[in-house]
Each structure stands twice: as C-alpha cells, then as structure tokens.
C-alpha cells in the first residue's frame, strides 16, 4: 500500500513537472507532422499547432509561418475551417497585419455568412485602420440595430483625424519673438529658455561688435545666433507635434473607455477546437 502511494506521488510529480510548455507542445506537434503519412493529417496537426500559439497568446513570426503552411483547401470539416479562419482573422488583427486579417475575415464571411454582432465588431476592428468605406458599412449595420449602443464605435476612425489647429500661427509667433510660440503651446520652461539663449547670443554679438571685434562678431553671429534662432523654430514645431500626439492619445483613451463595455458584452474570442 505504501509503495502504491509512493508510485502515485511520483506519477503526480511527473505530471506536474511535465506541465506543457509552448516549446514542448510545438516540438511534439512538429514531430507528429514529420512522421505523418498523409497531407490531411499534416494539415490537421498544423491547425493544432496554430491553436497552440493562440492558446499561449504567442503572436509572433512563428505563428505567421505555421499558419501559411496550412492548406485551406485540404480542410474538409467546415466547422474546423470556419474556426480556423476566424482565429486567424483575430490573430492577424492583433498583430496589426490588416491585409491578412482582411483576407481571413472575408474567407470566413464567405463561408459562414455570419451576421452576428461579434463578427461585425471584428470587421470594424479590421477595417477601421485600413478601409473607411467598409468600416462605414459595418458601422451603419450595427447602429441600425442599436444606435445608442454602437454609435460610440465611430471614434475608432476619428483617432487619425485628431489634429491641433493653427501650426503656422505658433511658428510665426516664435519667428517674431523667440520662444513665444513654445510658450503659447503651454511649454513655458522651454519657451523661456529659448528666449533667454537667443537674447544672450544677440547681446554677446552686439558687445563684440561694439568693441570693434568684427571678425568675432561675424563668426559668433553665424555660429550662435543663427543656430539658436533656427533651433527655436524647430523647438516650436516639435512642441506642436508633441501636443498634437498628446491630444490624439487622450482621444484614443477616451474612445477605448467608451467601446470597452461593448467588447465585454460581445467578446471577440478565439474558437479553439483541438480539445484544449
């Protein structure tokens, strides 16, 4: 009896230490692929392999490579094919490879004619960054079902349109008084620094010229005044860009907060069917 307990314990520990790691799973599937004796067996093992990546949330080049080894025409079971196409559309969307995401999504749609909200949400995610026409179609279709709930999705296409106005005005202000444009963009520290360095370099050149050090005045004005002045304009442009990016990021965060409840209600999840 005592020995039986020890053996059971050993088996248990063995099982624990054999917790499947991604590498081990991939290796085991690949060795099965290597020794498989039919194309359909290879195909179904490759599907399993792709699902292994998804299970471990591993969205890398390896997933791309193995997904492209699958021969879609060889898959006879339509449910397996549908799930694979769906999974690949979601995975490529996560990897921001929208061309492939679109391809797999369209294949999925052709096969299933799935009109569910989850599917339309996936389409919106895929077409959002690439095709505003398709995005609008799906958006219209969703809002026609429930405009109060889905109208906030519009913000997904608006992120890229977020811009700060009157860039030229700030630059011209900096041309007239160095640092002014930067200060108007509410970066007071850098604006004041810009004003100080420009004023100091002009004063130094003026002092040199007043003391009849003409060569020195010419060289310093060329080396310092010109650089500080043009640097001040570059700084204004950069500050403008930073502020614009900040505005866009705030908008993106707001958008994300608005749409999160929708994705919680209609989650876009992987459909794994390899017995995991």
């Amino acid at each position, binding site marked *: 009896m005592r020995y039986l307990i020890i053996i059971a314990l050993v088996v248990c520990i063995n099982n624990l230490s054999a917790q499947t790691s991604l*590498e081990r799973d991939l290796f085991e599937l*690949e060795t099965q692929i290597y020794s498989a004796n039919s194309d359909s067996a290879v195909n179904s093992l490759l599907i399993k392999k792709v699902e292994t990546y998804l299970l471990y949330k591993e969205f890398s080049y390896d997933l791309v490579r193995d997904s492209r080894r699958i021969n879609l025409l060889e898959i006879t079971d339509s449910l397996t094919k549908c799930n694979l196409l769906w999974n690949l559309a979601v995975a490529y969307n996560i990897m921001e490879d929208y061309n492939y995401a679109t391809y797999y999504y369209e294949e999925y749609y052709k096969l299933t004619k799935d009109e569910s909200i989850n599917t339309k949400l996936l389409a919106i995610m895929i077409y959002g960054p690439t095709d505003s026409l398709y995005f609008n179609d799906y958006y219209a279709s969703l809002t026609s079902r429930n405009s109060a709930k889905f109208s906030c999705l519009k913000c997904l296409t608006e992120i890229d349109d977020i811009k700060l106005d009157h860039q030229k005005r700030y630059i011209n202000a900096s041309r007239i008084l160095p640092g002014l444009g930067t200060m108007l963009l509410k970066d007071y520290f850098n604006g004041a620094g810009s004003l100080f360095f420009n004023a100091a370099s002009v004063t130094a050149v003026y002092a040199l010229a007043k003391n009849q*050090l003409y060569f020195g005045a010419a060289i310093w004005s060329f080396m310092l005044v010109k650089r500080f002045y043009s640097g001040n304009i570059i700084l204004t442009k950069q500050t403008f860009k930073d502020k614009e990016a900040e505005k866009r990021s705030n908008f993106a965060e707001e958008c994300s907060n608005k749409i999160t409840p929708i994705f919680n209600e209609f989650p876009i999840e992987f459909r794994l069917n390899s017995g995991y």
Partner: protein
Amino acid sequence: MEKKKNKLFLITLLFAFQIYGQVDSLLIDHFVDGYLKREHLFYLNKLKKEYPKNDTVVFELAKFHLYYDNFNSFEKILNNSKSDTLNNLFFNDTCFVNYASFQIIKNGQANSINWFNRSSSYNLPQHTKQIQKSFLLVENPSLTDASFLPSQLQSYYADFYKYNKRKPIVAGLLSAIVPGLGKRYNGRKHTFLPSLLLNSINGFLAYESIHRYGIKNPYSIITTGMFSVFYLSNIYGSYYDLKNVQIEKRNSFLYEVSDYYSTSCLYK
C-alpha cells in the same frame, strides 16, 4: 568463455549504437527546411539533457547556433569542448568547417586564431585553407605572399596593405603642421577642408582678441583656449583615426574574403 565474450561484444555494440543513434538527422533536416528554429532548439536541448556527454549532440548544437547566427553561443560551445572526438566531428565535416571558417573571420581576431590553431592538425578543405591563408596574410602582411588571392580580392588587399604601412605618428605630425592634413593622409579626404577651416577660424578669433586687448583679457583667454582645444584634438584625432582606418580596412578585406568563400551547405 567464448559465449561471455560474444555477449560483452554485443552489449558494447548496442551501447555504441545507442549513443550515435540519438540524433535524428532527417528530423533536423525537416526543422531546417521549415526554418523551425524553436522546435529545432528544443529537440537539441532535450537530447543534451538526456545525453549530456554525447559529442554528436554538442556538434549539432554548435551547428544550430552557427546556422542561426547565434555566434556567441557557438563560440561558447567551441571553447568548452576540447575532446578529440568533438574535434574530429568539427574538422571532418567539410561543409561545417567551411561555414564556420567564413563566419569566424568576420567575428574577431581572437576567435580566428583559436579556430585556426585548433584546426592545424587536420586536413582542411580547400576553401578553409584559402580563408586561413588570407587571415594569416592580414596578421603578417610582410611575411606572406599575396599572389594566391583571386583577382576579386586583390584590390581589397592592396587597399588594406596601403594603409597598414602608414604610421599614426606621421598622421599626428601632419595635422600639427597643417590642421586636417593628417586626416587626408588617413584617407578621409572630405574632412580635410572642414578641419582646416574650423582651426583657422578659431586661430583668427584668438588672434583678433589678443591683437586688440592683449592675452590677459578674459575674451582672449576664452578664444585662445578654444583654439588650443581644437588644434590639439585635431592632432590627437588624426593619430587615433589612422588606427581605426587600419582596423576598418582589415575587417573590410576579411569580410570580402568571407563573402568570396561563403557557402550555404551547412546542413545539406
């Protein structure tokens, strides 16, 4: 007695087959064909865990790291494995020796010396012999004749040889006489004029202030200090720049040698 001997022989034979039969080379070819790096490494690490002293596994690991450009790991394996069996595996595989040689000469002098010292007692393939001769040529340009080099490599060697003969002290002296001239001597033709101009401007600034207010004036001290810094750093820069140029030319020649003799037959 005879039966016992036979049994012992059979057991030994079985043991030997077990050791050398661990690595499934067809499976490795399958991994290489599909560029399945992760699975390949997992397989080799699994074998290494099961047979830590098996030289064939170590050899396969070395090949793996070499193939996937993981040179540091390859070098570590090379430095840790000194057994004769392993050396035999390394140096009797023509593709491996050629592949390793053209990779090694691109990855530093110490590695190359170590590699070619180890290979000295083996009959090396023709490409590796040429790579080794080219390496010895850059190590001792005056002792070896460069006529064995193919015409495509001759110009690169001539370029290396030309700069290798030059002396850093001469570059420093030339820059002391005419600022920037040392850079020209080092082959950096485009930096000569800017260097000369910058030093002249600084010299003129110093001259103008000293001429008007004397050497003790603060502005004169600043401009003279600036001129001195620019002038001295120009000399120092020219001196060390030649050393860098020599290393660049040496590496450039060895890269060309490596490209010329490169082979892709590590696995097939």
